[in-house]
C-alpha cells in the first residue's frame, strides 16, 4: 500500500514537471512544424518571460493581470524581432546556418540577461496563489492543476486555431510547401511571423508558470527545460500538437520515476537516451508522421 502511494505520488511529481515540459513543447513543435527550424532560443524566451514578469510585478508594481498580459506581449514582440532579424534572412540558407544562428540567439538572450540582471539568482514570489487539493490522501499542488489546465486549454485552442481559422490554414499550407503556399497567395513571411508570435507567447505563459513554481530567476533558467521540452516534442512526434502534450507528460513521468527509483545522477542521461532511442527506432515520434524527402 505504501509502495502504491509512493508510486502515485511520484507519478504526480512527473505530471507536475511534465505539464511544464508539455507547455514548452507546444511552442517548439509549432515553430518547428511550420518554420521547419529548431528554435534553440525557445527555452530562453521562457527565461525572458520570467524576467519580464518580474520587472512588471516587482519593479514596476503593476497589477498581476496586466503584468501577465504585458509579459506575453513582450515575448511575442521579441519572438517576432528575432525571427525578422536573425532567421528571415536565412530562409533559403542551408539548415546548418540556421541552426548555428539559433544557438547564437539563445546565447545572446542568456548573456544579455546576465549583464542586465547579473548572475546572482533573484527570488521572486509566485503571483499565482491557488491552494493545494487533497485527493485520496494525495497532496496535489494548486500550481500543478493550474499548469495542467492551461496546457490542455492551449492544446485545444491551438488545434482549433490551426484547423478552423484562415491563418491556421495558411500555416498548414506553409508547413507543407512554402513555395506552393506563396503561389496560392499566402503571405509566407507574415504567416511565419505569426507563428513565432504565438510560439513566443506560449513560451511566455510557460515562463510565468515556471517561475511561479520555482520562484527563482536565473539567466539560464530556460536552457535545460527548453532542451528537455524539445526532447518531449520529438518523443511525441515533432509537428504534432497532441504529440507535444503527450510527449511532455511522458517525459516528466520518465524523469520523476528514474529520479525516484533508478538514480538521480542518471536521470538526465535516461531522458536523453530516450531521445536517442526514439530517433533511432521511430524518428517521427509516437504521434508524428514522417515525410519522405523529394528527390
Amino acid at each position, binding site marked *: 500500500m505504501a509502495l502504491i502511494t509512493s508510486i502515485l505520488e511520484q507519478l504526480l511529481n512527473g505530471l507536475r514537471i511534465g505539464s511544464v515540459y508539455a507547455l514548452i513543447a507546444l511552442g517548439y513543435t509549432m515553430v518547428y512544424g511550420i518554420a521547419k527550424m529548431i528554435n534553440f532560443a525557445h527555452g530562453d524566451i521562457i527565461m525572458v518571460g520570467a524576467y519580464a514578469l518580474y520587472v512588471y510585478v516587482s519593479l514596476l508594481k503593476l497589477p498581476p493581470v496586466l503584468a501577465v498580459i504585458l509579459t506575453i506581449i513582450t515575448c511575442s514582440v521579441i519572438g517576432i524581432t528575432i525571427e525578422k532579424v536573425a532567421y528571415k534572412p*536565412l530562409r533559403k540558407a542551408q539548415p546548418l*546556418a540556421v541552426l*548555428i544562428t539559433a544557438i547564437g540567439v539563445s546565447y545572446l538572450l542568456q548573456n544579455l540577461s546576465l549583464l542586465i540582471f547579473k548572475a546572482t539568482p533573484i527570488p521572486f514570489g509566485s503571483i499565482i496563489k491557488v491552494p493545494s487539493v487533497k485527493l485520496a490522501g494525495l497532496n496535489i499542488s494548486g500550481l500543478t492543476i493550474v499548469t495542467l489546465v492551461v496546457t490542455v486549454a492551449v492544446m485545444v485552442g491551438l488545434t482549433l486555431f490551426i484547423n478552423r481559422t484562415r491563418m491556421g490554414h495558411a500555416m498548414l499550407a506553409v508547413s507543407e510547401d512554402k513555395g506552393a503556399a506563396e503561389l496560392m497567395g499566402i503571405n509566407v513571411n507574415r504567416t511565419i511571423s505569426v507563428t513565432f508570435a504565438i510560439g513566443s507567447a506560449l513560451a511566455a505563459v510557460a515562463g510565468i508558470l515556471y517561475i511561479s513554481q520555482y520562484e527563482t530567476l536565473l539567466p539560464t533558467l530556460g536552457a535545460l527545460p527548453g*532542451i528537455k521540452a524539445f526532447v518531449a516534442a520529438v518523443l511525441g512526434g515533432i509537428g504534432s500538437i497532441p504529440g507535444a502534450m503527450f510527449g511532455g507528460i511522458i517525459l516528466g513521468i520518465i524523469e520523476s520515476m528514474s529520479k525516484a527509483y533508478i*538514480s538521480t545522477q542518471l536521470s538526465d542521461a535516461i531522458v536523453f537516451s530516450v531521445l536517442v532511442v526514439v530517433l533511432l527506432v521511430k524518428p517521427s515520434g509516437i504521434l508524428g508522421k514522417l515525410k519522405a524527402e523529394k528527390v
Partner: protein
Amino acid sequence: MKKYGKQILYMVIAVGAYAAVMLLVNMGLLSRQMTSLIIPVCMNIILAVSLCLVVGFLGELSLGHAAFMSIGAYSGALVLKSGLPVVVSLPLAVLVGGCCAAVLGFVVGIPVLRLKGDYLAIVTLAFGEIIKSVFNAATPITGGAGGMKKIPAVTTYKNFTFVYILMLLVILLVSYLVNSRHGRAICAIRDNYIAAETIGIKVSRFKTMAFVISAFMAGMGGVIYAGNIGILKPVNFDYNTSIEILVMVVLGGMGNITGSIIAALLLTVLPEMLRGLSNYRMLVYAVVLIAMMLFNNSPMKRILVEKKNMRQAAKIQ
C-alpha cells in the same frame, strides 16, 4: 610549381612559429601568463581543426565535441597516472585517448547513419549530456563530481615540442585528408548527399569516418588538456565547451582550416588579455555566431563572391 610554393610557405610558418615560441620562452621574455597559454592554444587548434572536419567539410553540426574530448581526457589521464615514464606514458596516453574517443565517435556514428541536420545536432548534444552524466556517476573510475585529480602535469610548456608536433600532425592530416579521394567524398556528401550516393559514395560510411577521425583528434586534444590542467571534472566538458569550439570553427569560416587555426589562436589569447570581461565574452561569441551566419548569406557576400569570380574570369581570358 605554385603548389609547392605554398607548401614551402606553410613549412616556413610552422618552423618559424616553433622557433619564435622556443626563443621567447627560453629567453624568459614571455610573461608567465603568456607562457601558460602556449599549450591551451595548441590544444584549441587541435580541437577546432578536428571539429572543422565535421562541421566544415561534412556539413553536420556536432554539439558534442567536448564529449569526445572528455573521453580522451579521462582515458588518457588513466594512462598518465599509471606511473610509466613520461616518454612512454605521454604518447601512449595520446594514442589511448584518441582511440577511446574514436570508439565513442563510432557509437555516435550509428545514429548518424539515419539522421542528419537538426536531429543529428540534437543527438550529438544528447550524447554529450549522457557522457557527462555517466562520468559524474562513475565515481570509482572518474572521481565523479570531485574530479579526477593528481594527473601528472606532462603537457606544460616544457613539453611544448611534443604538443606542437601533435598539433602540426593534426593540421597536416586533416588538410591532406580533405584534399584526397576520401575528403572529396566527405565534401560531396555535404554539398549534396543524394548526388553523392548516385556517383557511388557510401554516404553512411563516410559520415561515420568523418565522425570517427574528428573524435580521435578531439580525444588527443583531451589528453593534452588533462596533462595541462591536472584535474578533470565532468562539468568542464559541457555544452558550453562544445559551443566555444564551434565558435572557433564558425569564426574561421567553416571549412577553412587556416581560418579555424587563426580563430582558435585569437579566441584563446584575446580573452586572457581582456581578463575580467568574461561576461561580455560570451555575449560577443553569440554576436559572432549570428553575424557570421547572416554575413555568409547576405547580398553583400554574394557581391563580393561575384567580384572575385569576375576577376577569375578576367584572368582566364
